[in-house]
């Protein structure tokens, strides 16, 4: 049988069960007593930034067009002509999938069809079916998806920030690729990526809800066995070899502006940061959310002043995003007086970098963070996000809750020092 590890978090009243199957697949089950909804997620540690690697089948180094991971997501969630969303709907289950920079995840949500849905999820992800014809059809649908994002000013503002910060890192390319790059994708490309990155040892299965633990693990193993002929044979799970483009420390461009047919202009200010690992990623994330509260929330001097000057009506947001291959902070805001907002933001950031942290605001922000962590656990989505983050960042699942208690004022000032004007880029969307 499997060795099941149990982690209890008393602050959130959650129990987490984890185990690893013989093929290397990691299973995480977060028990949420009393909830009707159950969520099953099958994911791989493979996302849009990977496009240069060693093909597991041929052993040769290959490069693939941008957008393959996302394309694969669309095609894998389909079976011999039937869309997976439809197959799930037919058994009364809702489902979806997403691709981000470093992961591709397929999931379902159900109340009373958990076992069937779990079986279907495994079947879909484990049985690729790519033909010239279905690849061509998908190019049309994904083309529409790319166009839709191209008209979305938030998305354009964000990606222009990434383009400005990064010279070579594929994070600067749209997750779905471009109309041009997806036209180069063939069924062979899809099989190459699938065979390399959808090995069970590179994947994870996360379940959240009020489910039976032993039974769930048994269903997972029984179903995986159907599709893996070599299951149980100690497969040589040699590491996947990925080549990352060398990314210089310096930024690519200081400023990118674009005019769109919109009413509300917006700005993103990005800071390219040094790469951190494991629990440092979690810590950076928490520290930056405190920075957001202390310096940009409605409690802040900045908000009050800008509101009174008539420059902003809502808070500007401050977010940090980090993976194994990049880390950056992005401040974004909307204003009909976008140049004034830009000027004030840049001045303000310089000023806070060189000032002492207000201890009262720091304590207030921490209190809020402690409450919010508990609030959020009323929502099942929050449980799987924490688990998937921990898988990708390779840290313990509930580490964030301990880290928050240990954050000190000096962590805030250390972080602010990273917001260096040499590493700063600006992306603006203006009215046409």
């Amino acid at each position, binding site marked *: 049988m499997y060795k099941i590890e149990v982690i209890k978090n008393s*602050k959130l*009243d959650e129990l987490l069960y984890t185990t690893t199957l013989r093929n290397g697949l990691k299973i995480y089950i977060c028990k*949420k*007593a*009393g*909830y*009707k*909804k159950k969520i099953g997620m099958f994911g791989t540690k493979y996302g849009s930034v990977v496009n240069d690697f060693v093909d597991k089948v041929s052993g040769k180094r290959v490069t693939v067009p941008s957008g393959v991971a996302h394309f694969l997501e669309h095609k894998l969630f389909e079976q011999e002509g039937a*869309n997976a*969303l*439809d197959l799930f*709907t*037919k*058994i*009364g*289950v*809702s489902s979806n999938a997403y691709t981000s920079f470093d992961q591709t995840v397929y999931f379902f*949500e*159900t*109340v*009373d069809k958990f076992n069937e849905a779990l079986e279907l999820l495994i079947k879909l992800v484990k049985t690729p079916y790519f033909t010239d014809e279905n690849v061509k*059809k998908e190019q049309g*649908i*994904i083309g*529409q*998806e790319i*166009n*839709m994002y*191209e*008209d979305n*000013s938030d998305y354009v503002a964000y990606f222009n920030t990434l383009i400005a910060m990064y010279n070579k890192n594929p994070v600067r390319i749209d997750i779905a690729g471009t*109309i041009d790059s997806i036209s180069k994708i063939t069924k062979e490309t899809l099989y190459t990526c699938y065979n390399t990155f959808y090995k069970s040892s590179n994947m994870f299965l996360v379940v959240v809800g009020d489910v039976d633990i032993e039974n769930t693990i048994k269903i997972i193993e029984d179903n995986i066995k159907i599709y893996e002929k070599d299951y149980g044979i100690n497969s040589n799970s040699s590491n996947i070899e990925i080549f990352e483009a060398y990314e210089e420390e310096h930024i690519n461009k200081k400023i990118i502006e674009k005019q*769109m*047919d*919109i*009413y*509300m202009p917006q700005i993103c200010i990005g800071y390219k940061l040094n790469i951190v690992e494991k629990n440092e990623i979690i810590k950076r994330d928490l520290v930056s959310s405190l920075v957001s509260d202390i310096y940009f*929330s*409605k*409690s*802040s001097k900045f*908000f009050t002043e800008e*509101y*009174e000057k*008539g420059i902003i*009506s809502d808070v500007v947001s401050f977010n940090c995003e980090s993976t194994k291959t990049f880390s950056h902070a992005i401040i974004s805001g909307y204003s*009909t007086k976008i140049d004034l907002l830009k000027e004030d933001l840049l001045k303000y950031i310089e000023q806070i970098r060189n000032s002492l942290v207000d201890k009262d605001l720091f304590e*207030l922000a921490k*209190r*809020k*963070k*402690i*409450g*919010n962590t*508990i*609030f959020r*656990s*009323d929502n*099942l989505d929050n449980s799987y996000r924490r688990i998937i983050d921990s898988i990708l960042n390779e840290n313990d699942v509930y580490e964030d809750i301990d880290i928050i208690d240990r954050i000190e004022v000096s962590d805030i000032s250390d972080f602010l020092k990273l917001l260096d004007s040499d590493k700063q880029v600006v992306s603006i969307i203006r009215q*046409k």
Partner: protein
Amino acid sequence: MSNIYKINNEKFKGISISYNLTLPIVKEKIAENSVLASVLSKGSKNYPNQNEIDRFLSWHYGSNFETSVEKIGDLYNIEFKFLILNKKYLPNNEDVLDNCLRFMNDIIYNPLVNTSKFDSFIVKREKEYIRDKINEKKDDKLRYAVQKTEELLCDKEPFGVFVYGREEDLENITEESLYRRYIEVLDESMVTVIISGNLTGYDDIDNKIEEVFGSKLNSRISCNDLIINNVNDSYNENIQYFEEKVESTQSVLTMGLKVKDINEDEVFPLIVYNAILGDTPSSKLFQNFREKESLAYTVRSRYYRYKNMFVIYAGIDKINYNRAIEVIKGELNSIKNGNINEEEFIASKQSIVADLLEWYDSKVALQKMLLSNLLNYKNTDMNLEDIISKIEKVTISDIIEVSKKVEINLIYFLGGEKSV
């Protein structure tokens, strides 16, 4: 007190307290209502600015307080909503309820008013804010196209107006007029308080609410005075066509449909009809328009139960305009001709039921259902189980029958100029 409702579930850690002012409205007053809600949320006598409000909330462990506006059919609802944690989950079991209730009372009933005038600076700023909200709706092309279709379909009813109102109605709002409107809103609204979440240790929560809000809870208006649908019987014999130009890569095609002469029991077959037509991945539109024809990434139908109407929307390439209309018309007719198979019928019902069951896991969904039942049925007798059983009783022939009452009223096109 009869207008305080409690929905207890111990699996949650939080408690959501929703205080609703629901009132009938005329189109011209929607902008003023949205400015009012916005001004109220920006300060009160004891918490005179957003900074004070935010500090209060952070101190109470990030308790969340939101003021929002929505249309429920032709009614307008201003909602003040608190999300707090049950003391059981807070450090030292600190209880934040009393402070939060007093805070809420202060925001709603003790606003920054002097000599019958709101603070002039805040009014000016919030008018600008609402003007921006009205103007920026066009930034999201799909949402804008849907909203525009609602407007065209309901050109005579309040429901047709954007939730923040019309720009031309903002001009005349002053500190004084807004105060008069505030008094009117309080007088013309039904007050409903709905508490949902983990109420363990809060048996007396309704008494506390009565203590804090007192006679303000006794509104003159009751749900029997509120009409959710000001029926507009104007149906067009011929389909009307509208087109608007915009610079974008993708175009949006929408259709507005109305349902003629329906009775209350037909709402449930219409909900299932909507799922079969275009509200799930098994639906005819998703399967044919998206999957078979590759015409769109987004295609969906939406049913407005209080207004007896549908909107179908899709993001398409301009060159596919004619084909897209043809395919949608084909699907509408195919249902009318009885083309619903057992599989899609069962799938659609299951998917609706599954969505409804998930409401049990959401404090807010349960609150919303209660208020909407109260406004629609004038009581709160109908629970989630009743709704589910009504859906389950729907038959294929019920759906075919109601489908014959659904007629295309207008076709709207938000045309992209850039060629791809």
